[in-house]
């Protein structure tokens, strides 16, 4: 069971997060205070941390900085209620691993925590395999079973990202950030859906078992098994 440390001073937000994570099978420790949170992070080991940017006692970024100095490498998701423009840069620079701006959707939070916990498969691998899908990173070729997939470079990138994180929920924001390096919500909201539609059209041929699934209202999953 994964242990998560949540440092968040707003009780209601914290309660909802704790309940949601507990439902998903996480064991959550919660504290509202930065200093206390730093102490707990130092003394007991956690698999991931969620740290609010603005905390009483000690600023969230300071907590992360102190932990990184102590060689505590626990992955951290930073939460911020600010307009969060420069903050994102600073948050990541201080040693945060991911950054989420309030208000956020719970699925987004859970998806990002799961992404932090399950670091992508070894990046030195040159051939990725998920179910019948096979991606050759050197030859830049993709195949599903015997069928060669003719992918555009961006589709190849997208598929590579999804195969490294198979069976994980990937939200649109995550895909934009990681695949396109684009940090903000575009005015055209179905931008990613269109890209995914193209890729799915090529990956899931007629009569084949669909591998790319749309999770309603949240994102996409590449399933390795039925």
């Amino acid at each position, binding site marked *: 069971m994964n242990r998560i440390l949540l440092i968040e001073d707003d009780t209601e937000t914290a309660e909802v997060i704790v309940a949601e994570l507990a439902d998903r099978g996480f064991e959550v420790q919660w504290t509202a205070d930065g200093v206390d949170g730093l102490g707990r992070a130092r003394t007991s080991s956690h698999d991931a941390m969620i740290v609010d940017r603005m905390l009483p006692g000690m600023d969230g970024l300071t907590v992360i900085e102190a932990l990184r100095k102590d060689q505590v490498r626990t992955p951290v998701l930073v939460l911020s209620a600010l*307009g969060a*423009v*420069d903050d994102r*840069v*600073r948050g990541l620079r201080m040693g945060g691993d991911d950054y989420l*701006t309030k*208000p956020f*959707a719970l699925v987004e939070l859970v998806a990002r925590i799961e992404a932090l916990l399950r670091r992508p498969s070894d990046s030195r691998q040159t051939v990725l395999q998920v179910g019948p899908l096979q991606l050759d990173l050197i030859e830049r070729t993709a195949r599903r079973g015997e069928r060669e997939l003719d992918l555009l470079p*961006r589709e190849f990138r997208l598929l590579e990202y999804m195969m490294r994180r198979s069976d994980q929920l990937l939200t649109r924001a995550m895909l934009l950030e990681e695949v*396109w*390096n*684009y*940090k*903000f*919500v*575009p*005015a*055209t909201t*179905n*931008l990613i859906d*269109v*890209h995914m*539609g*193209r890729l799915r059209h090529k990956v899931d041929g007629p009569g084949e078992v669909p591998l790319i699934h749309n999770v309603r*209202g949240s994102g996409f999953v590449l399933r390795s098994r039925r």
Partner: protein
Amino acid sequence: MHQIQLIRSSTFLWALAVAAAFALFVVALFAFIYWKLDAYLVARSDRMITTQIRFIADLPPSRRLNAIADHLAQDSRGVQYAGLFDAGGNRLAGNIDHLPRQLEPDGAVQGVQLDLLQKPTSHVPVVRAVGRRLDGGDVLVMGRNVDETREIASVVGEALALGLLPAFSLCLLAGAWLSFRAQRRVEEVNQRVQRIVAGELRERLPESGADDPFARLARIVNGMLDEMEMMINALAGLGNDIAHDLRTPLTRVRLALERGRTHAATLEQLQDVTDKAIAGIDQSLAIVTALLRLTEIENNRRMAGFGDVALDEILREVCDLYEPIAEDKRIRLGAVTERHVQVWGDRDLLFEAVANLVDNAIKFTPSGGRVELRLDAEDDTALVRVSDTGPGISEQEREAVLRRFYRSDKMRNTPGVGLGLSLVAAIVKLHGFRLVIGPAPGGRIEILASIGRASRPVTRRSRTLLHADAGGVG
């Protein structure tokens, strides 16, 4: 009350000070003239009596008495004094009663008091006198009344005083008048400002035709008020727009929840209602977030992410991102980037700016049209152009589209937050670049960027480049 104010007014005080300084100057001048005159007259008297005493002393003793009598007889004004005393101090001749004690014989001319035979009625005159010991042991004293110096001085003084008084009064009057005039104008300005403070934004300060500092100041302030009125109106409009844009999704949420609460019979139906509510709230939040971002960028605080940014890469990436959706709308999307161009800026924000422009272009270009991204560079200026075959932005709308929440009437029903172009404008401004909206028909928006690290504003020269260029198409 009014009078006290008048006296306290700085203009009046200044006038008073000037008048006092003037009076002081006149008094000093008078003193100087008096001192000079006095010295001159005394010196003249001294010379005269020195000559006279030498003349009489040089005469043989027998003729001295007559000479003294003649000398005194010739003096009709009674300002000459003379006396001859023997060694014992007894008077031999002249109109001086006895030898003055302070007088040093054979000394220089000096001011002494003389006891005269005929005592003067008014006062003891101040006299310049000189004494001389003669060979026979006699002492000769010659003197001269210098009271006339005082008389002349008093005449000059009177004349000066007569001139000084009116001048002083004039100064005070002028001061009072200027002060009164200034106060009247200040009072008028004050009343108008009070009205402006009370909310009457169209009120302006009085601008007389004259080119005095007051009128100039009024013109400057009025210019500032014009600017502020415009901004306040825009802000007021913004408040309305925000309220309106937020109310629309929130109303939908409310209705959905209200109906769902009473009518949802199954879990699926309830979830459906909840999804709708979440979508509506997300839309409201998107507006708030966009506004916060806009404010933050406009407040110029975001410089942490600045670095070297390759514009050609950004254009290609944006193109890559929007290609499928353009294809779905049967719009040809292409990027022409012939050169590698680096600018100093925030990659994410520049990406967002270009993406917003492309997003808009695709949104407003009819099916079958074309959207083109183009990067040109010349010397120290880069030009990013997003052009399309859509309706474009008319001259009248050019300013308005940069305003928050502005949505062209034609596109009232197009989804979108309506902050896209203001966001682009804010990002462009943060970088010190320029945003240019080209003439309709055909959408055409350009970002004029300076190449290299220095975030200097784009130069005038490049502006001409741009207009010459724009003229060719428009």
